[in-house]
């Protein structure tokens, strides 16, 4: 009986080791991911539905969630054109040091977030070299939402560049040449031929940047200033609630973050699917 059940569940193969490999994989995922995440899903309700509602509608929590998701969305939206600019320069032009610059793009992936955090703060603090520059034109960078935005810009940029690069390399040159032969101007070709082709990649890169930014902690907390209601991000609020041993409150904020994140990712995926259809048409 079990044999036929397994046969229906997986296709036959000459290779051995399936039960061992899958068993290991599932056991590991179960212990490391599924059980802990189940705790996250269950814990908030120990204070009751009304308790969770009260917790999440607290002005400080709402402000933190709004700040985290708002600055992340803004950073992803700004990363998109910046990433496009850099990917374009790297793919379409040949210049000395191109490969070095290409490698540098990955630095935010490689630099630990705490290091990035204190470095960005030193740069963009009022007495830092770039912070002073912005202060002259009346913009306070560090210890304000602008500082959070800058840190998230930093953390998200490589996602956009790396998402666009391969697609930009493969944009059909023949189609572009054809457009040129037909008399399209450079700008027309970029807007009408290249942009639609790379749009899905651009959206998915910006989405990855957004998803990463929402949860980002290390690179943000040093530059943010961490003023409740003003510059306090949601992950920091979780840390603060845990320090007060308010496990249910921390779990409620954590669960809300996960749900809002996945909700926005699903919405963006739907948008992307429609973009991809239009790109093909």
């Amino acid at each position, binding site marked *: 009986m079990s044999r036929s059940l397994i046969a229906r569940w997986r296709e036959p193969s000459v*290779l051995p080791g399936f039960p061992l490999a899958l068993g290991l994989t599932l056991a590991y995922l179960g212990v490391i991911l599924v059980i802990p995440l189940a705790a996250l899903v269950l814990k908030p309700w120990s204070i009751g539905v009304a308790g969770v509602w009260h917790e999440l509608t607290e002005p400080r929590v709402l402000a933190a969630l709004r700040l985290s998701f708002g600055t992340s969305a803004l950073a992803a939206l700004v990363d998109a054109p910046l990433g496009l600019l850099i990917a374009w320069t790297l793919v379409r032009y040949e210049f000395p040091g191109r490969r070095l610059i290409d490698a540098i793009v990955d630095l935010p992936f490689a630099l630990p977030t705490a290091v990035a955090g*204190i470095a960005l703060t030193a740069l963009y603090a009022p007495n830092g070299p770039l912070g002073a520059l912005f202060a002259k034109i009346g913009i306070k960078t560090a210890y304000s939402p602008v500082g959070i935005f800058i840190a998230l810009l930093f953390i998200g940029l490589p996602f956009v560049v790396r998402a666009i690069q391969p697609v930009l390399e493969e944009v059909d040159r023949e189609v572009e040449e054809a457009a040129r032969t037909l008399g399209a101007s450079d700008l027309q070709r970029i807007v009408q031929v290249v942009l639609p082709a790379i749009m899905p990649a651009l959206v998915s890169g910006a989405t*990855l940047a957004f998803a990463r930014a929402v949860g980002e902690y290390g690179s943000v907390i040093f530059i943010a200033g961490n003023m409740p209601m003003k510059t306090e991000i949601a992950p920091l609020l979780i840390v603060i609630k845990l320090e007060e041993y308010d*496990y249910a409150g921390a779990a409620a904020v954590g669960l809300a973050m996960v749900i809002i994140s996945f909700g926005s990712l699903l919405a963006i995926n739907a948008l992307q699917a429609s973009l991809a259809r239009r790109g093909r048409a």
Partner: protein
Amino acid sequence: MKPIFRLPGIAPLLLLLSLIVLGALIVMPLGVVFQQAFAKGLDAYLTPLREPDALAAIRLTLLVAAIAVPLNAIFGLAAAWAVARFEFRGKTALLALIDLPFSISPVVSGLVWVLLFGAQGIFGELLLDHGIKIIFATTGLVLATIIVTLPFVARELIPLMQDQGSDEEAAALTLGAGGFTTFFKITLPNVKWALLYGVLLCNARAMGEFGAVSVVSGHIRGLTDTLPLHIEVLYNDYDFVGAFAVATLLASLGLFTLVVKTGLEWRFAGELAASRRH
């Protein structure tokens, strides 16, 4: 590659703009780490690195990575073997589950362990009765690090092994080789560079992880502070030279990772996974 757009004057402008963005956002922060660390001379730079707390943080960071990275590497190999070599139902869900840690906040990845094993967590009392400490101890740091770095090796290996197919392994088996012999003599050599690549990135993230470990650490100096947490402690004590001095260690690790990673990409592009995004 030749520029296919002949936009007079535009190309240098775009390059300049790219350099400004990369400079202000990426290169200058890296430079500032070293500049601040050496701001008061070599002695001031070396002193914080010789502190017992700093040495303890280095040891702890190495220990945590030495446990978390091999476990995730073994998991990655097992997952890749199951996913890339067999067809079964629920594979898509399994792949989504493996990728999950990348889309949740590191702080949440730490939080879940506190909810399980913290003083008021689900198993809190049980652990207390038996005198076992997980949160505010090395075990908690390891667990938090494992969850954050779980996907790195698996997601390098899976696409590559799917591309490679199983013909070579099937041939070895037909010729009478055993399962483990086939794995160690055929599979492992075929994926060695991708494995190294995944381990490299996994290790960089494990040693640099901040959010997840900061939740479970409790910040006991000399005991549960890893290098990134030690940076935070020094920084919050206004010991900026010390914080940046310790930060140079992690920044160097990041640079080293970047150099090796780029080298691997140039040299073994074909032997690494085709599609990559982290």
